[in-house]
């Protein structure tokens, strides 16, 4: 074994330790991220556009980062199209229901909490399967892509819808 091999051995051993710490940290990080998103995403009080935009970017970029990983190469080739389609659909639903009666005192959106929970559940389930050695999980990856696009689209659409409702009085929108 020459110097180069010895160095490679030592560096790899250090790398295993660092990666081990990263695995523990990431397991804790996903729990905190879940709680933080569940605490923040469903609330509609105050300035929401920036928060909803950040949430949408988070959902899309994290899903994109995950699905572009080497183990999923070729496993779900249409994931970008699924994300874009579900994003448009998720944006359209609150936009089309803009005239629906809304309780002005409502500050907690249970649907948003459910969307965050579904998206993160798909992500964690997919990660568990990846650790178990199953990278060919096409249906689950499409569900993950679809749920993230829907969450991002709905997040932006509902914030925009609220803004439109506040800016323009619409006939018949008043609640009983």
């Amino acid at each position: 074994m020459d110097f180069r091999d010895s160095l490679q051995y030592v560096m790899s051993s250090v790398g295993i330790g660092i990666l081990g710490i990263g695995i523990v940290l990431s397991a804790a990080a996903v729990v905190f991220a879940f709680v933080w998103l569940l605490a923040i995403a469903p609330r509609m009080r105050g300035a929401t556009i920036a928060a909803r935009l950040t949430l949408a970017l988070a959902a899309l970029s994290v899903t994109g980062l995950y699905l572009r990983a080497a183990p999923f190469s070729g496993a779900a080739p249409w994931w970008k199209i699924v994300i874009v389609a579900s994003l448009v659909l998720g944006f359209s639903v609150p936009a089309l229901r803009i005239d629906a009666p809304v309780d002005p005192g409502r500050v907690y959106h249970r649907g948003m909490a459910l969307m965050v929970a579904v998206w993160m559940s798909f992500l964690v389930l997919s990660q568990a399967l990846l650790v178990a050695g199953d990278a060919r999980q096409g249906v689950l990856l499409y569900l993950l892509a679809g749920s993230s696009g829907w969450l991002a689209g709905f997040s932006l659409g509902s914030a925009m819808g609220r803004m439109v409702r506040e800016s323009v009085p619409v006939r018949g929108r008043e609640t009983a």
Partner: protein
Amino acid sequence: MRYLEVTPALKLAPGERRADEFESFSLDNGRAAPRAGEPHTLSRTRATDLRPYLREIFDEYMTHPSRWRQGDVQQGVWYTEGHKRWASLAPDQQALVQAAAGKADPARWNPVIVLGRMAGAFGPIVLTNLTLAVLALLVIVVGTPDPASVIGQSLAWIGGPRLAQAFIRGRFSRGVRFVAGLGIVALLRDGLEEAVSRFVSAVMSRRV
């Protein structure tokens, strides 16, 4: 797929015709097909420097090409990834790896190969989860006027009130409050809201 380099360099005289045959080996057992745009080399690859015993297996094959079959060499190459068990290799394949590496089952407990396996399985997960946590923290900083209290509440819920109190008194809490109070964050939070609100009002007032 594009080929970065073809060695040896081919020089043909005008009118000269030449046919060459190449043997190819897959270095990644878990990948069904090469990705579009991925660089491929016909002979030199960095994997021979990074992955233990890969160069030795190719050298052994090139030194005694008639002794080993291409399929056995391919199995030997995949063995260096660390996903194949030594016992699952055929006797010819074991003989090839042993002749190349100088010992039986060389990949077992090799830290370089173990790290490669770990990085392959956990690398995307670690990267995704840490990115997610940072972005979720950003959502809190942008979305609430007092992000430290939200983080404190979540810590109290996950780890108990002592952990939350330690966080609220700690430096991290002050750091979060400092970031949340930065002008750029306030501008992002309130300025963006106002700009979009004005845009929506302008568009809707034209329509109504």
